[in-house]
């Protein structure tokens, strides 16, 4: 590329371009912008992502056991699943919803698409933001669940390493899914997204029952394996309630990495298509 020389009053534009350094500076600035906005919208964010899991915990983890419809041990299977669900929903929605708006009508993302940084890094920044919000959702839901349900048999926080890996990889997977959905669907399809993608994902994601339990209907047990939520829920079980039946953590992590790669590739591709005409 040709030499860059100074425009008169701006030493920054004037200095020779150092792509690596500049890209990271820009990346951090993009992140700071999103953090600023997310911080201000924290109450809405919490309501949006935490309400549903909490209702579920109240009904299935508190009311039904008290009525005698479910056994007390069910709560041990429920908590990791609900945690996985909160994390997944938070990550997906925090990326998808603003992006659908941006590409659909507001075009506010334009100023960032004009930033001197390769476009894929703008998409990557969105994924990082989604991960952050997914992790926060999980951190909020766990103590709330514990408070509502009382002591949960078999629940342990001893496997911190596994918990962190499952959480971060899981949030990344769903954040990348958010990128894919957000750059593919149109604003008028948001309702459809919930009924066609999100709802089946929630109900067949082993959030409310362990995967092992599905062996009563083998067809379903294998069909749900395409659902990325299964691996997060089972991973959470492996990390939080390791004494109860769960998929092996190696399988969970491997599957998540494969799905993450697929979502990232497709998400980046469709983001690029929307970002550059």
């Amino acid at each position: 590329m040709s030499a860059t020389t100074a425009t008169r009053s701006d030493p920054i534009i004037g200095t020779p371009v150092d792509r690596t350094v500049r890209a990271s500076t820009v990346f951090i600035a993009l992140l700071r912008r999103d953090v600023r906005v997310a911080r201000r919208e924290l109450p809405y964010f919490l309501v949006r992502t935490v309400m549903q899991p909490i209702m579920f915990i109240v009904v299935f983890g508190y009311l039904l056991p008290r009525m005698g419809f479910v056994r007390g041990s069910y709560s041990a299977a429920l908590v990791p699943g609900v945690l996985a669900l909160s994390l997944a929903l938070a990550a997906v929605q925090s990326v998808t919803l603003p992006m659908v708006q941006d590409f659909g009508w507001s075009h506010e993302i334009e100023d960032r698409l004009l930033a001197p940084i390769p476009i894929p890094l703008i998409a990557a920044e969105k994924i990082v933001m989604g991960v952050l919000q997914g992790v926060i959702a999980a951190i909020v839901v766990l103590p709330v669940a514990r408070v509502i349900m009382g002591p949960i048999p078999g629940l342990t926080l001893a496997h911190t390493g596994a918990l962190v890996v499952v959480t971060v990889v899981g949030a990344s997977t769903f954040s990348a899914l958010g990128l894919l959905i957000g750059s593919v669907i149109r604003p008028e399809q948001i309702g459809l997204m919930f009924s066609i993608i999100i709802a089946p994902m929630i109900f067949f994601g082993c959030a409310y029952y362990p995967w092992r339990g599905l062996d009563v209907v083998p067809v379903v047990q294998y069909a749900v394996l395409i659902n990325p939520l299964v691996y997060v829920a089972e991973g959470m079980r492996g990390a939080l309630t390791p004494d109860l039946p769960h998929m092996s953590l190696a399988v969970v992590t491997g599957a998540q990495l494969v799905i993450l790669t697929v979502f990232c590739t497709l998400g980046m591709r469709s983001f690029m298509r929307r970002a550059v005409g």
Partner: protein
Amino acid sequence: MTQGLRKVYPAPSSRGRRDGAPPGRGPGGPPGAPRRNDAAARGRSGHGDSNDIVALVGLDLEIRGGEFFGLLGPNGAGKTTTIGILTTRVRATAGRGVVAGADVGVEAVAVRQRIGVVPQRPNPDRSLSVLDNLVFHAAYFGIPRGRATARAHALLEQFEIDARADAKVDELSGGQQQRLMIARALIHEPRVIFLDEPTVGLDPQARRSLWDILRDLHAQGRTIVMTTHYMEEADRLCERLAIVDEGRLLALDTPAALRARAPGGTLVELMLDGDAGPAAALVQTVPYVTDVSARDGVLRVYSERGGQIIPALIDRIQSGGRSVTNINLAAPSLETLFLSLTGKKLD
């Protein structure tokens, strides 16, 4: 995926090229030195496929550094596509674009570093305040917060919106939002500023104040590339104009030279109550008529005697069994040139 729902808009192929050395002021060059002779743009575009909407057919442009350059054309002429390609927001199907020394296809990041863009419709970051719109945009260009804030205030002051610095963007009027967009395009001190129809939707007063701002920017030696479909705006502001239509370059010159190329005489436009074709033949021989064209119910006659020939025109038209429902007169202008080049009006 719902890919199929998309309108196949771009098969635009464009080749834009801006050559040139870096800005004329090297290190230590005096501020306010003469115009840079750096940037030049050439655009050229090829063809799309059968079903694609071809926005640009073949465009070769060369824009000089420090120039106030206008792209004039009706809606759908390919102006926005051209700006899109040169600002790295649209990928050219074929051809090449170079902006301030960097290739838009290959060195998009370097291009983005050197340009400021004012979009057709204001698209501020509505989650941020007026001031933060500028401060964060500056941060995307690596400008430290303190310096960005000072510069943002200076720009807001210059554009008379500093009083609203902490307001939400939605509280600004359309004109104020547009000025905020210009401030945003300037906060990182770009070499080249692109403005896409910057005055659409503004009231006359806001439009005039925007013109003043643009003149100032140009006087500071910046390269400005602006699209517009307002003749007056193009005429008053731009040093050189490219008239484009249907993705083609029709004419390129200074506004004065273009005006001089407008067909001689006054344009008399007569609206008829039916097809104007037969009437065109009849009025051809009216004295002082220099040129005649017909399109549907509109008859366009160029006259060396202004409106004096109108009675004779009406007579001839009536003798052909048509009557005149309306008449417009226009002095030679960019408008009449555009009409003669494209057969269409510019709105």
